[in-house]
């Protein structure tokens, strides 16, 4: 290893430079934010929803996460629908908007939700006139 000291210094410098770039990448944090963390998103599964009424309402609207999933402008005393919704272990909130006939007495709606495992969960919503309520299943 004899040769020019200048050449040797240059070789050492180049070696440091070559190592420096990957080292910098490994040790310095990027300013760009990482992707937003995502919770294990619950997969949409089929659930059954059956609604029955003590008094026929004028209309019924069911919302999930702020989005209408069932609008019924001519409801019957008992009606059923299959819905495809994410159903996490923590359960779901369904928002019911019911329009009862003006001047009608206090009325009730029975909501029966059949979860993806086939288990039924029931809740009642009471109201008069315009009724809006959030029901948590199970």
């Amino acid at each position: 290893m004899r040769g020019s000291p200048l050449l040797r210094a240059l070789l050492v410098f180049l070696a440091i430079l070559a190592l420096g770039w990957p080292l910098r990448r490994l040790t310095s944090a990027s300013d760009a934010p990482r992707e937003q963390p995502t919770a294990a998103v619950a997969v949409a599964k089929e659930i059954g929803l059956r609604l029955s009424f003590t008094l026929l309402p004028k209309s019924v609207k069911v919302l999930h996460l702020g989005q209408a999933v069932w609008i019924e402008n001519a409801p019957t005393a008992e009606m059923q629908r299959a819905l495809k919704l994410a159903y996490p272990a923590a359960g779901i909130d369904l928002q019911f908007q019911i329009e009862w006939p003006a001047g009608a007495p206090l009325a009730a709606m029975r909501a029966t939700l059949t979860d993806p495992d086939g288990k039924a969960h029931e809740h009642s919503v009471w109201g008069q006139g315009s009724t809006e309520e959030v029901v948590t299943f199970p």
Partner: protein
Amino acid sequence: MKKPGLFLLALLAFAVRAGAEEKLRVSSFSTILTELAEQVGGDRVAVTGHVRAGIDPHEYEPKPGDLKVVGEAQVILLSAKHMEGYVGKLKESTGTKGVLVEVGDRFGSLKMTAEDDASKTVEDPHWWQSIANMEKAVEVVREAFSKAAPAEVPVFAANAAKYRARLEALKKWTRIELAKLPRDQRKLVTSHDAFQYFAEENGFEIYAIEGISSADQPSSKKVAGIIATIKKKGVKAIFPEKIENPKVLKEITRESGAQVGGELYADGLGEGEAATYEGMYRHNVSEIVKALK
């Protein structure tokens, strides 16, 4: 003709003064209770709010002027659950004959880690973050006022009923707003462990992380732990109360990908839209939904 006129004027002034004196004198040591007292008492009470909006009730200490007012108060409202560490001194130094109502002690408590000793738990004093607790507090205050001024019982009962109806409406609005968030995404990461009652009432999980608000530099191990928790739980946003350590906050958000949510009111009323309980609560719920949706 002048003398009867003067006499009538004096009589009127006396009547006005007597009327003012007839008001139930109330001292309040919580911005929340000051509003509650005004709602329940209406024009039959004269409420002095010693803790003003924006003042940290954890840090507050009464001043000599406060003690004089408390000495003359007929009802003294305290948030309780150890929020007012000065309560003993307050009783001793004022010699008040007024009724001391420790509102928060009339209903159940959640536990939180003690600030000075992480191995110990203490009562969580932030009970007003639950609307159900607020409804209980309305009853506690109505009862206290009714005992202190029995002639005004119907007025207090009517005012309390009106305010409870407003709280019921707030509860309903809250449920509708929070229904926009999937139940498995209701995860609240805050720098001040003040939202346990809110979490319990609304189906949230709480992760209080120390080190963001504090001026002290948390260890890198601790920061790594916070980042790991946020990633593992899939938390979308964190809600630091005060950002005294922006470097740490920047590192946490950059590494975890979580966003910084809006300011939440933890310790009492604020200003502007948060100057009332309903306004404060709506603000907090709206900020949470906006950040986690």
